[in-house]
């Protein structure tokens, strides 16, 4: 009974406390913070490179705090359309950028290409299916993991297989697709399944293969490869337009490009 009383007391205090007029809060703090905080939405494949660029940008701009949201480009696009507060958007594909331009979230002429990225085939270190070349991807019974068609890298991988049809025969792509055991929801999942040795092969960006250990790589000739170009742009309604522009400029500068190169990304061209 005593316990019930004290619980009721707590509840009553809580409820009446809610009705009390709010104490006058200091209004200055949030304003000061928003001028030095930047929210960057970036494709999952940029995780390592952008984290390092963010640290070096923060070091060069004392008091600035950059927060990253890394996810599949499509998810980021949806999040921004649903009102997520982003200052800068870096996509693995122009398609998401175009959708945001159409929706008025990004100015028509704002996007700039920040890097290029190509595809590679990855194998577990012990190469359980004994793959020797690209043509072996069609070997019956191979366990191949791709990113889903909805994800840019998954779309590029299928485009690349289309182009290989010309080289290895018109049914090559169908044979390869028949070997797919899983369509993962992002490129890091493809990487993980191959690293763990659960899949015999996967197709990822060259940049993902650089960041990973315990892998064998089969290169794809440039003329048959799909070269992805990543666009970046500040958002129109960013509260920190100036800082957002500075961050984009920093990534395009030689310093930013060196860091991107270190993580396996190609130059802008």
């Amino acid at each position, binding site marked *: 009974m005593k316990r019930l009383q004290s619980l*009721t007391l707590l*509840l*009553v205090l809580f409820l009446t406390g809610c009705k009390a007029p709010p104490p006058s809060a200091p209004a200055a703090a949030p304003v000061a913070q928003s001028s030095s905080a930047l929210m960057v939405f970036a494709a999952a494949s940029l995780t390592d490179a952008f984290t390092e660029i963010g640290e070096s940008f923060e070091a060069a701009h004392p008091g600035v705090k950059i927060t990253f949201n890394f996810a599949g480009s*499509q998810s980021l696009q949806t999040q921004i359309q649903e009102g997520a507060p982003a200052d800068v958007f870096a996509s693995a594909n122009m398609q998401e950028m175009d959708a945001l331009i159409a929706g008025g979230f990004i100015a028509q002429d704002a996007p700039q290409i920040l890097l290029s990225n190509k595809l590679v085939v990855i194998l577990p270190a012990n190469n359980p299916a004994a793959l020797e070349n690209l043509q072996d991807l069609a070997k019956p019974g191979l366990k191949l993991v791709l990113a889903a068609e909805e*994800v840019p890298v998954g779309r590029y991988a299928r485009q690349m297989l289309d182009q290989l049809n010309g080289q290895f025969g018109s049914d090559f792509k169908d044979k390869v697709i028949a070997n797919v055991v899983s369509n993962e*929801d992002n490129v890091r999942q493809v990487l993980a399944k191959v690293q763990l040795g*659960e899949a015999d092969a996967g197709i990822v960006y060259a940049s993902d293969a650089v960041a990973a250990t315990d892998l064998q790589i089969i290169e794809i000739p440039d003329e048959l490869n799909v070269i992805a170009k990543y666009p970046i742009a500040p958002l129109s309604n960013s509260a920190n337009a100036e800082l957002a522009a500075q961050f984009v400029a920093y990534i395009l500068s030689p310093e930013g490009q060196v860091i991107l190169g270190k993580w396996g990304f190609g130059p802008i061209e």
Partner: protein
Amino acid sequence: MQKFFHRLLNHSSSKWIFILPAAFLLALFALPLAALILRSFSNDFLIHAFSEQAFHALQLSLVTSSITTGITAIFGTPLAYMLARWRFKHKSWIEILIDLPIVLPPSVAGLALLIAFGRQGLFGPALGIFGISLPFTTAAVVIAQTFVAAPLFIRSARIGFTEIDMQLEEAAHVEGANQWQLFTEVMFPLAGRALVSGAIITWTRALGEFGATILFAGNLEGVTQTMPMAIYLGFERSLGTALALSVVLVTVSVVLLLITRKLENREG
């Protein structure tokens, strides 16, 4: 001071102390679901909901979650019975082991399953001798669902068996019943309600399983792509598909809950 609160409690308005917090929580449950349904109607709901991909995903979800529930009932009932009625060493450790999957994030479950039963996992080579490779198969979906959802059945069934009067058990012993007769003729019928409601919870939890499945079983239409996975990928492609599939899953869950609730009431 104490008198004041007594008076407050006795006053008829004191019932609001219960109603208000309850309403807040109910609103948290109801509002997002209502928003989901409202938003989905403005899109091409029917086109998305009756696509081939949605049908495959629904079918796979229903089949795998039913198998999971069956396996759980067969293997979980004896376990719950032992935990409720028998005395043995290290019982509390076994109980903690059973409760762990409930509190662990499903991604941990998926990773653990992969590390244990994956091709390169701890027991992978042993399974390989028999030509079994679990990841990327429908069997892996069932294993992931069972790992995550079975403890809910065991919990409910254990409570059901525990609540049965000790005197009934003693009376059965006096009549000369053995363990099996005691179970089938006394315990099982009396705990039936708890078993059914445990099975419902396990079924619906299995239907919604996502995290462990995508890590352990992967995602392939018709083989391992269950409803929650199709919804997640729908979110990547277009919000309309994700919304439509979500509404289908909510509807299926409500229908399942209604049917099983009816069954439960008839037994009781």
